[in-house]
């Protein structure tokens, strides 16, 4: 592996090209950006193991104004500590899922996991409430009132909970997403 050099080796780049939706330029740019965040300047990072902490990642201009930035890091992090820190490969995973050419399938899968705040595999009322609060803003005067929230959530469940079990699961979620042509163009982060 080219981990001993400060640049990515050719094999690495072409492997990443194979495994992600990113182009060569995008991978190199991602590497450059990752290196800017990486602290330990003396030891070049191992793309699999060396990590950049969540606090630093969320300060990226592409993520800083995103209300789901912490969730995004947690979803793409493979850290055993579950601290949301990203290795370079995790970072590539993130960019790949949010890239222009990623499929609707991939994008909706990750969107579902980002919105599933308690990681239990379904979007229940609590998840939906958190999701709505993130969208409208978290302060007290930007939140919806309790009545509005109740009305909204029962509307959502009415519409998208097809099997009527009180939660939205992945396939129901993808069912909704697949009918929205806007989703692919807005679920996108490009460096």
């Amino acid at each position, binding site marked *: 592996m080219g981990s001993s050099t400060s640049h990515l080796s050719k094999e690495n780049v072409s*492997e990443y090209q194979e495994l992600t*939706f990113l182009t060569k330029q995008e991978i190199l740019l991602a590497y450059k950006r990752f290196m800017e965040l990486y602290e330990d300047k003396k030891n070049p990072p191992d793309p699999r193991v060396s990590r950049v902490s969540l606090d630093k990642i969320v300060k990226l201009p592409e993520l800083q*104004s995103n209300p789901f930035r912490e969730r995004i890091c947690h979803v793409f992090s493979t850290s055993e500590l*579950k601290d949301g820190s990203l290795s370079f490969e995790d970072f590539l995973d993130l960019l790949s899922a949010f890239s222009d050419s990623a499929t609707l399938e*991939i994008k909706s899968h990750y969107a579902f996991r980002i919105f599933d705040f308690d990681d239990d595999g379904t979007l229940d009322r609590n998840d*939906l409430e958190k999701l709505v609060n993130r*969208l409208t803003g978290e302060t007290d005067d930007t939140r919806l009132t309790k009545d509005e929230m109740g009305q909204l959530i029962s509307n959502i469940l009415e519409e998208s909970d097809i099997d009527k*079990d009180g939660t939205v699961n992945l396939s129901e979620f993808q069912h909704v997403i697949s009918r929205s042509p806007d989703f692919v163009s807005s679920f996108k982060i490009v460096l």
Partner: protein
Amino acid sequence: MEEHNSENFLRLISVESTGSTLSSDSCEYYQTEIFDQLPSVQASRPVQNRPTLVEPCEAYQGGPESEELRTGHLPRGQRDKVSVQPLKQLALCIQAKREASERRKMQLSNIGFWESWWKNQSIKRKRAWAQMGEALSGLLPWQHTLHVIEGKFGVGLKAYFVFFRYLVYLNLLHCIFICGLILGPTVFLKPNISELMKFRGNDSILDFFRGSGYLNRSLVFAGFYKQNIRLLNIRCLETTLLYIAAILSILILSLIMVVRRTTVGYKHTWVLGKRYNMNMSYKIFCGWDFTIKDPDAAILKSSFIRNDLKLLLEEQRFSLREAQRTLGQKVRLYLLRFILNMLVISLLSGAFFLIFFVTDWTLIKDNSLPENLFTEYLSPFTIASVNLVLPEIFRKISAFEDYSFTTQVNITLVRSIFLKLASLGFFFYSLLISPKKDKRLCTENEIGRGIYKMCIFNFLMTFCSALFFNYPRKLLQERYPTSFLGRLAGKQRFQIPFNVLELVNCQTVLWMGVYNCPLLPLIGTVILVATFYIKKFIVLRCCVAEQRLFRGSNSSVLFHFMLLLGLLLAASTLAFQLYETELGTNNMSYCGPFDNGQIVFNATAECMNSLPSAAQKSIHYLTSEAFALPLILAEIIILTSYVSRRQANQRAIERLKDMLVMSSSDKRFLVKQHATILRRRRNPRRVCAAATTDDHPLSHEVTFSRIN
């Protein structure tokens, strides 16, 4: 059941929730442990976290033993899909993909040499295609601009600019037709062309604004193409026929392209959207625009979403209230609406009369009036001002009609579209029928001139409003934000609907004029490109994003639908003009490609007669009733089959939905039942479980080994 019990398995229970999850009946069924092991849940579980991988990808579940159990439970279809999909389309982390690729290579080495070679080749081919696509998409102009706009203002405004770029492409395509079929033959074959194109003494630069003098003689207008030249001595290859062929192919091509774009969007939003009403879910699940980078834009977006949701909920309550209206209130409301609609109609007819009158007056004005730019541009000016004032009035009127907010916006938009297109139609009509002051003037050129001026005027207005209105306003607001004027000026918003209306208007004018002024697509392309940069300047330099949430797809359907209306208007004006020419009313002098008694219909007929008899016969058959009847029958049969198929599918969908609800409730019942049984069995062991947790107070994963 027994088998499962004898197995050792790990599971995840949060220590804190152990008691509450297990003891209370109120726990949701999806929080029970058996739920995690259901095949359907396994299939949709984040694959990234499945323990197939020994390394860090393993996040929270299970050990190596349970892997077999899990993959064994994977539904068959799922597994097949996984093994053929390209690696990058799997929702896995890179490490997992790497291992998957190793596994695939193993499989590949098992299969024959040719097959593996073939697979490798197909991968290489795909990669080459992808590279080519990338290279081509790099050639698209304005990619970067669109990206910047998207980052600052979101998808809605980008849709406007994408629409803009689409129109530029469309006009470029038209230019190819014009150059190939009209300009090329005429320029090469027409004698003394340089003589005509010479700049004479009495020509002035103002001619370019008035479309008179030099421009009137040049190849811009239809009069230039008067002479009929036969190419290669073939009867059907005449400049006149090529001329009409170019115009018709432009219109038909535009029709096909616009209809295609409209139906694609329509299918997405209306057909699918209506039956499965998922408005709110869309707004929540697809609400955030992840492309936004600017913190201000993010705050703005949040407030859009909030306002939009509040609006939607309010509208829901409004419809509830609406259902509770009493008869008296209803009668009063309908009366009010009727009166307001009459008002709208009278305003519209007043506007049309004004346009008609002004155009008429400028065309027959007596020579005592000075012939200056003001009178030349009076009718475009009237149309523009009418279109500026009336939509505002319509907006005010619709507020009184007690519709819900969205209906108000839509109704204003529909009325404005109608006004815009109809005023163009009236303008054209008055150009066509008003008697000329000078009988020697060429009718086609006169109409072409009118439309040319309209086009130039629209552009000048965009330019001037940017330079003298938007930019100073922005400067004022920037420099003196606290002054009275600065506060009065306020922040500028880019009103997408009205800007789209402007674009549609521009394109409609281009289509309407193409017969009388064949160089209009070329001029139009230049104008559109310049306008693109002006709009970009306005948006990026002077505007803050619009308050109302504008959804990309919905709006693009609306854009293209308006464009379609414009195209239909243009086509009908052309048909009307050709019909007028055929009738030869108000004995005007026609000087376009079809002059000296020759009109479109007999020109094509002559061409037909020169064809070989077999071709003639087949064309006659294709245009006869004998062919029309079977055609209609075939269409009816195809349509009927589609309708019945749709109905059958609909029934199947309903049945499947019922089945889904049924099986889900079964699942819930079984899971709950299982949890209850488990709880009963475990109760005596509770103490033991507590002891284990004491041993590992920090660990959240508790191992239960249950050996019966």
